[in-house]
């Protein structure tokens, strides 16, 4: 029977022209008698049908359903004992409506169909969402839409995502329900993933799809602007000119009380937080992870109801090490400073982050600034400050000039803030001073201390040690700063020299703003040099102007024979012979 019907449909579709479709739509709208046109029209709304047909039928169906939607019973309602024909009709309509939304969602999500059509489809879905649930926000349709979008195979930069974010995300309720459905989605996604992991053998195939959906979720989530606390006017999608009373009613049916916009903001915040937390519990792919870490401290943390909830995620990321840690640091720093997070071994981990790769990392600027502010506290023990000083200056021996500049600034600040580590730059060799150092020294190994007194020239600093406590930085001296004075790059050597001069004076000198140097790179230093006005150009002096480009004396191990020349010389010799 069904197959016959479908065949019929097919035939009809082939038969019907666009004008006929239009006529059918007109008929449908005029009277109930032509209600059988409905399934026919519905059949056109598939990704496979030609766009004009789909569009035409969509328009007719939309105008047919829009006035009817408030009357439709909820789909979950079971048919009563007494089958009121009107009710049966409405139930049938309801099922058709569900079918329509399903079709529309499919259409919107299918990547084959036309962009413009999908835009129209999205609009009509949102129209249904607006009034779909007895004049209230139809969460189930919207949830289905989002779910379809996320689970579909659409790319991250698909137009549907953009359109949704652009057009509808400035409505508070849309954002609100997006958050709530994302929360659910994230939970289910994880479950599904677990299922897939357990069931599927070919895990590798499915994995990318999850990554993709996570990426899409992130994209949408990042687009959600969290509410500001004191927002006067809330723009609602489902606001058909009703008073605020009803507006609030849309959030929760039970709650008919007057709720202030402040309350709404609070709720919004909660949902937002939940959405983010559940999202962050997903297994994020690395690129998303990095992006998340960047956006977290910029736009997310301040809008969470309870930022401390992020600390699990952040500490986990901070423990990963490498670039991720560097990036997590900024969010963690906000938590620690503004929300009273206590983090054990924070400095040890911070110390472990100091690696040469730091100077090539993308987010180094922020990191250096944070490092500077982390080391700002004057309550830091001397051994820690000394270890940081020493480690940083060791790094400077292998860092590019921009890194050396930052390090000099950081070391300068450290030395200015912590007078207790001034022995790094000034230490008298004698019986008096050793007593001082031993008093300051917390580390209990006395053997190496004796060694230090014996051989003050050896650097006892253990560069490879990850625990600043055991680095022996207290028995070292900042020879590296002196070495940097010979750096080939003029800004570095000059800065190192000025640091030494500053340190020579006992009076306190204002700290250097690390942000002035932290964003430096080869490009900035090179640019500075090139932008410098050329005042005078000295030239190299030669007693006799050299006639060849390379001399083998300057380049041991290389020769600069010219084959061309050789052969020509040979030829000449042959000629002359």
């Amino acid at each position, binding site marked *: 029977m069904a197959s016959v019907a479908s065949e019929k449909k097919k035939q009809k579709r082939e038969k019907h022209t666009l004008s006929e479709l239009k006529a059918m739509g007109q008929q449908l709208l005029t009277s109930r008698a032509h209600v059988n046109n409905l399934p026919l029209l519905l059949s056109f709304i598939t990704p496979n049908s030609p766009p004009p047909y789909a569009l035409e039928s969509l328009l007719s169906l939309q105008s047919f359903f829009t006035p009817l939607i408030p009357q439709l019973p909820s789909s979950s309602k079971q048919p009563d004992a007494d089958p009121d024909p009107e009710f049966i009709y409405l139930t049938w309509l309801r099922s058709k409506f569900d079918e329509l939304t399903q079709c529309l969602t499919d259409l919107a999500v299918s990547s084959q169909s036309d962009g413009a059509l999908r835009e129209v489809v999205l609009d009509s879905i949102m129209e249904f969402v607006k009034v779909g649930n007895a004049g209230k926000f139809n969460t189930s349709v919207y949830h289905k839409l989002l779910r379809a979008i996320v689970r579909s195979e659409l790319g991250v930069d698909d137009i549907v995502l953009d359109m949704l974010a652009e057009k509808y995300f400035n409505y508070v309720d849309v954002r609100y329900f997006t958050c709530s459905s994302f929360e659910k989605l994230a939970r289910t996604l994880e479950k599904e993933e677990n299922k897939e992991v357990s069931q599927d053998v070919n895990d590798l195939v499915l994995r990318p799809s999850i990554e993709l959906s996570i990426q899409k979720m992130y994209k949408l989530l990042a687009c959600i602007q969290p509410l500001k606390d004191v927002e006067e006017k809330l723009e609602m999608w489902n606001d058909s000119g009703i008073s605020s009373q009803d507006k609030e009613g849309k959030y929760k049916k039970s709650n008919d009380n007057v709720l202030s916009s402040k309350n709404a903001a609070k709720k919004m915040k909660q949902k937002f937080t939940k959405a983010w937390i559940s999202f962050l519990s997903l297994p994020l792919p690395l690129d998303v992870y990095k992006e998340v870490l960047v956006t977290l401290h910029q736009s997310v943390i301040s809008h969470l109801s309870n930022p401390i909830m992020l600390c699990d995620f952040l500490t986990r990321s901070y423990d990963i090490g490498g670039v991720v840690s560097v990036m997590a640091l900024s969010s963690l720093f906000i938590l620690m400073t503004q929300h009273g997070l206590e983090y054990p071994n924070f400095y040890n981990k911070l110390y472990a982050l100091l690696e*040469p*790769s730091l100077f*090539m990392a993308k987010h180094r600027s922020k990191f250096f600034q944070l490092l500077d502010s982390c080391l700002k506290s004057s309550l830091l023990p001397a051994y820690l400050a000394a270890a940081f000083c020493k480690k940083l200056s*060791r790094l400077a*021996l*292998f*860092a*590019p*000039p921009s890194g050396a500049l930052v390090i000099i600034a950081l070391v300068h600040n450290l030395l200015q803030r912590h007078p207790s580590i*001034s*022995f790094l730059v*000034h*230490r*008298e060799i004698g019986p008096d001073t050793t007593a001082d150092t031993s008093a300051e020294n917390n580390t209990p190994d006395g053997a190496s201390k004796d060694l230090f007194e014996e*051989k*003050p*020239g*050896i*650097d006892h600093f253990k*560069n*490879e040690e990850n625990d600043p406590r055991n680095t022996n930085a207290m028995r070292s001296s900042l*020879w*590296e*700063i*002196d*070495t*940097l004075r*010979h*750096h*080939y*790059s*003029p800004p570095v*050597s000059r800065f190192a020299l000025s640091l030494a001069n500053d*340190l*020579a004076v*006992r009076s306190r000198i204002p700290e250097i703003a690390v942000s002035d140097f932290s964003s430096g790179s080869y*490009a900035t230093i*090179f640019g500075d*040099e*090139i932008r410098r006005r*050329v*005042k005078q*150009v000295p*030239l190299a002096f030669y007693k006799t*102007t*050299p*006639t060849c*480009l*390379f001399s083998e004396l*300057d*380049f*041991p*191990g*290389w*020769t600069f024979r*010219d*084959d*061309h*020349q050789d052969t*020509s010389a040979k030829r000449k010799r042959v000629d002359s012979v």
Partner: protein
Amino acid sequence: MAKSSSTGSAKKKKSKGKINKKLSSLNSDSKKIKGPKENPFESIWSRRKFNILGKKRKDDERRRIGLSRSLAIQKRQKTLLKEYEQSTNAKRQLKLKKKSKFNLSDGEEDDFEIQGGGYFPERDDFEDDEPFYGDYYDDELPDGRNKRQFNPHEAEGDPDSRSAEEQNRPKTKKEVMEDIIFKSKFFKAQKAKEKEESEQFTEQLDKDFASLVQSEALLSLTQPNKMSALNSLVNNRNSNDAAKKEVAPRMHNKVSIQHEKPDHYDKLVSEMALDMRARPSDRTKAPEELAQEEKERLEQLEEERRKRMAAGDGDDSSNEDADNSEDDVGEVSKQISHISGDDLGDSFSDVIPKTKAVWIDDLLTKNSVTDPEAEDDPTSGEEENDNEEDDDDDDASEDEEGEGSEESSDEDEKAQPLKDSEQSDEEQIDLEDEEDDDRDDATGKKVIMENQKKILVTKGNQNNDSGAFRVKPIVKEDVHKRGELPYTIEAPKCFEEFSALLENYSDDQVVEAIRRIRTYNAIAVAAENRKKMQVFYGILLQYFAVLSSTKPLNFKLINMLVKPLMEMSTETPYFAAICARQRLLRTRTLFCQDISNTGKNCWPSLKTLFHMRLWSMIFPCSDFRHAVMTPAILLMSEYLMRCPITSGRDIAVGSFLCSMLLSVSRQSQKFCPEAITVLQTILRAALTNRQRYEASQLCHLMELKALKPLLHMQERVEDINSLDFLTLMDLPDDSPYFTSDNFRASILCAIIRCLKGFVDINEGFKSFPEIFLPIAKILDGLAEEDLMPDALKVEIKDVSQVIEIKSEEFQSLQLPLRIRKQKVIKTAIPKFEDNFVKGRDYDPDRERVERKKLKKQLQQEARGAVRELRKDNHFLFEVKERDKARMQEEKTEMYGKYRAFLQEQEHAFKSGQLGKNKKRRR
């Protein structure tokens, strides 16, 4: 009645005053004249009788106290006394004004007397005025006396003291006359003195001249060419002998010389005049003039060449022999040229700096050589060419000038349209840069290809030529396969023009063409050439770039371009720097683009490396900050830091960059962390995996650039030959050579040597052990390997030992930093100086010392001032006292007179002669 009597008395007083004046002036004059003259105290020298230990002895300890005292008095007379007189004058005038307020003026007399400090009858009545009165006398009296006493003064020749005093007061007519007389006499005396001095001076001059004549400097000045040089040499020798003979007797009796000398001198002068007159043009030429001459020479050559072209080749063969012989002469004269050149004769040393002037000088001397050479027969040129080309590029190209096709020059000149000469430098650079990248490959290849196929092309060109000269060029072409260069070449204005110009020429000719362009458009000749040459410099730089990026690399030509480029940079250093900076900027932006495209090899190209090297040769590398070298070094370091090492070729380029950085930072001993890091990384690529793991444990710093064991030796290699840079750069990335053990051994050798260089220049750094010890560990690991060639092993061990020894040395000597300034702790223990010198301040506090010094100085000055004031007071007091005494004297005198008069009257009265006497008085 009363009035008349008063005036009468006034007159009388005046006349009497004059007498008095004269009297007193006589006194004072005699005093003053005698005073300075024969004060025996002035001749006494005070001297120190004993040496006092610990007291510094000054040389000017000996002094004449008496003299200085009298000098001080003189000074006071000049200054203080004058002031004093002026002040008294002013007071008097003030009073006068008050007095004369109600008086009718007496006309001229009044004025005169005010000016002359005249005598006023009213003053008699005031006791206060007495000093003024006396003053007046004091001033006036000497003048009266002067008349009589002047002559003796003059005879004694002491006019200074007199004139000094005379300045102090206004002069009367007589005084003026006397002054004039005195002055004329004084000047006579002066003249006599001067004459004597000038005589002495001429004598001295004669002596000097005699010695000058003996020296060869004068000879060189007077002799521009050989023949006349001999002549004058002989002449001068003769005169020298005469002069020498003269010198000796001159020393003995001066008087006789004064008679003899003029004759001899005149003779000498006449001789000299004959010598000198002929050559006014033999001065040293300014560089501009030299350049101008050079340009003119080229123009002339070009003109001649054209003439020859028009006249045909009939007389070519006849000149051949003569030319060759003249060539020889030219060679000789070239050698001589240094001696007979323009130098002033004071630099006879053979070491002549190879400056541009000398270079042009050489050309000048060649001028005579090349002139005939230009008319050289083509067939004779060939042999010369082969012989001389090896000796000297210039010579060779000079020879080639004479040969080759002539039609190409014509074409070239036509092919130089005078385009927009207003093109600014910046535009030019931009253009270059654009052109550079677009056409570096295309044009460059074209140029080179055509260079190689020049025979074909020139043959093609000949078809276009006029029929008259067709035969000869073809013959020439067939024989020499070379094109002839025009002598005068305008500076090309764009790269196309330049490449068109050089299309058919050999490398040597290209260089010669550049030389000619430079000479013809030398900046020294005309100011507007600067712009042309700047444009040309840019073109040349572009040519350099094109050459270095063409595939069959013409390294010889590149090398030959180095010299002109360097020399031109010295002419326009600023422009050269700007060109270099623009190129650097361009290179860097390209590099940044490359590095953002992952997968693309972003190591510098041969062109970039050549440019870097060129700039490091043109500009000094040791400057703290240099407009070109600082960015260049930065860029090289950036290459090392940011380019990933993925293949053997990358290692080769990287290690070459390291050695370039080494050569750049060698002089200033700068610290290049990037180069050392890269060397370390590359060395680790030679270790086995196990060792690498250990090494990375040792220094986990290097995680950044962990490498595959690209350089790990697979088999034993016996010989290590140094790598040929150019062929290496030519090879593609995946060439099998880069994975051969031969390459590995060689590159390791190069790297070790480079590392050695860095160890040497960085040995002074305080972090030397920290920087190099990890590398030493890697080296030790390398030395343990079995497959390592023995020679390399030795070198590796050597370097690692050097590092270890130096580190140890360092660690034993090094002390912790002591940057803080020392604070001096107060101590109660007295400090003892070993060799204490009295009077020296041993206070360690510099500020206090300074303060003390200043205080002492202040005290000294204050004391000196007080002393001076006291002396001044004394002096004034003396003056006043003297005045007073004089007044007193006068008073008593007057008193005596009046008293005598009264007594006389009384006597007359008593003796009854009153009436008679009264009558007479009336």
